[in-house]
């Protein structure tokens, strides 16, 4: 009897525990899937893209725009325009307009990270115009996750290095690091990912193209599936010809040569590549010609990486986390001092490319 009543008690108690809580029924809340922030006169314009699921599989995108004093009161203001309460749990993308990003995005991203309902896998991005305008184009796609899926697939199969809210914060709070976000533009009424926006502190500083974003990816992580066009001089030495190089695997390696100022670092990249679209006169079965291609990849990547690093130095941004690298190697590292000497930082770049696949045709 004793045992039975005990068992009964514990079952009742566990049922009580599962049954209490705030319930949110899917039909009676509005999921914000993409949010855009723009600088407005004395305040922020927030635009929320909300999918309205009417039938299974079909969704109609709704679009709400509101102006508020700061990012913080955009949600209460949005609620004034909605029939159901707003829910941020499904947010996948936050887009910043150009002028908003140039003024600094700390308030926006901090309010995202403080909300436990928002996943740290949320993607952030910068538009080359007002976020509102860009999102209005995305509206045609009938897909609330268009932008975030686009970023996701380009990180996996393209030239974008890994980015999300967590990594943005990692770089933002990390000493000797600056974060970067994907940059969007519009081409023929279609949204296009056209590179990466480099930030200094929380302010959008400069933009790099999609080729440089491959270099950045190569310098940070495995550049798997990324690709660039590599130039080479043609057989008759008259014009430049290009071939397409796909990265299969790459691994960067940093070696600090000197921690005192001017500091110097040696960067060594090992790259395994696939080449299959080449100028006609190249024979991919010939050992010598392959070596020639490898050589052109190496020379091109080395010089482009140097150019990319000097661009970073010119703009005083550090997306590679070189400051952090030196911090980890010396005990009396100081971020201010490093920044002052950042321009004089010496880098040597060495790329070791190997073509390991040449496609199916000869």
């Amino acid at each position, binding site marked *: 009897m004793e045992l039975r009543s*005990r068992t009964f008690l514990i079952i009742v108690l566990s049922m*009580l525990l599962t049954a209490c*809580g705030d319930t949110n029924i899917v039909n009676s809340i509005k999921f914000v899937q993409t949010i855009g922030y723009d600088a407005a006169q004395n305040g922020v314009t927030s635009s929320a893209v909300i999918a309205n699921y009417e039938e299974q599989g079909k969704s109609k995108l709704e679009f709400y725009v509101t102006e508020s004093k700061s990012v913080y009161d955009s949600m209460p203001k949005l609620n004034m325009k909605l029939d159901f309460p707003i829910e941020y749990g499904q947010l996948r993308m936050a887009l910043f307009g150009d002028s908003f990003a140039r003024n600094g995005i700390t308030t926006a991203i901090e309010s995202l990270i403080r909300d436990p309902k928002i*996943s740290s*896998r949320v993607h952030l991005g910068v538009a080359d115009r007002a976020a509102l305008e860009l999102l209005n184009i995305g509206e045609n796609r009938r897909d609330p996750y268009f932008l975030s899926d686009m970023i996701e697939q380009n990180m996996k199969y393209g030239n974008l290095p890994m980015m*999300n809210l967590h990594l943005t914060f990692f770089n933002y709070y990390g*000493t000797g690091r600056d974060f970067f976000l994907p940059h969007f533009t519009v081409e023929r009424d279609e949204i296009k990912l056209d590179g990466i926006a480099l930030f200094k502190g929380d302010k959008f500083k400069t933009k790099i193209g999609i080729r440089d974003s491959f270099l950045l990816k190569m310098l940070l992580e495995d550049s798997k599936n990324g690709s660039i066009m590599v130039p080479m001089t043609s057989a008759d030495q008259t014009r430049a010809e290009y071939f397409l190089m796909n990265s299969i695997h790459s691994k960067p390696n940093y070696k600090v040569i000197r921690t005192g100022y001017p500091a110097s670092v040696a960067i060594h990249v090992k790259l395994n590549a696939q080449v299959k679209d080449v100028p006609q006169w190249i024979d991919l079965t010939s050992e010598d010609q392959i070596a020639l291609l490898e050589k052109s990849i190496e020379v091109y990547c080395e010089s482009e990486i140097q150019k990319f690093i000097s661009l970073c130095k010119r703009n005083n941004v550090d997306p590679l986390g070189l400051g952090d690298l030196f911090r*980890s190697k010396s005990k009396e590292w100081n971020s201010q001092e490093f920044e002052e000497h950042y321009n004089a930082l010496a880098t040597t770049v060495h790329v070791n490319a190997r073509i390991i696949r040449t496609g199916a045709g000869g």
Partner: protein
Amino acid sequence: MTYQRRVIEHAGYNAWISVMLTGIIMHLLIWMLYKILSSIEDSNDIVTINHKLFGKLLGNLINLAIVLYFVFGAFVKFKVYMEMIQVWLFPSMNFLPVSIVIALLVYYAVSGGIRSVTGISVWATIISLVSIIPQISLTFPFLHPMNLLPLLNHSASDILLSSKDMAFEYLGVETLLFLYPFVRTPEKSQKWAHFIMLLVTLLYLMILILAFMFFTEEQLRHTIWPTLNMIGIFEVPLLQRLEYMAISLWFIKIIAGISIFIWAACRGMKVAFHLRPRLSLIVFLTAITALCHFIIDHRTVERVSEIYSNIGVYFLYAYIPFVFLCVMIRKKLIKPI
């Protein structure tokens, strides 16, 4: 759950040394506890030892303090967990019913006696051990080993200060003071106690180093629940947000911790003041639920757990060595006679 942020306050990313240091000190304390509990004939829990050492009146005063300390510990555990649920799961829920239900569960566990309390603890241990494996494997792409370098850029005093903060996480070993009489073969159990302490230290060390590689130092300072944020990055099929599951799994750990503390307190009341455990159990749980209802803001919770942690540190680092010394002196004095 939150120690990653607390330990870096002084020693920064050298705090892993502090964790190891605290682990070593804990081994010393376990050794002391065993010595204390086994040296005096026919008095093998702290209540009777206090009676023998300090006399009936003073001894009982100390016993009461220890009992209250355990209840306080249970309360802090309870409240910290509740707060986590409030922030992460149900921000607008009324918490009185929930805390009453949890209190009833603890009542059920503790009234089942030492067996059911240890039973829950076993499950809690298994959960913590098992949960570390997916944590390591899923965070792997986000780890930056460079964060750990340079290895030594903080002073020894900073590292010691951090290891004081770390002691909070080890609070709970002192329940041995009451558990000891229930251990069938004390001599054999000491080996296991040291073994589990080693395991716990390694676990803490692993989770800490994982967090260090996952967050930059400044970022970690801005993160209240680092473990949860870390779990938040995982993406598994079906479940988009793993941290909700983690919080639910933690429930069993929390219940185990609260039950052990409350059990120790009830046991103390019984041995010292001959009170019926059921009565003191009800009083303690009611007090905890009521306190939980009245303390609502995060700042007070932080302050309360800081007070608790300070008391705990003195309990471990001052009271236990002091009793140890007394017991040893007494042994020396009595022997020649």
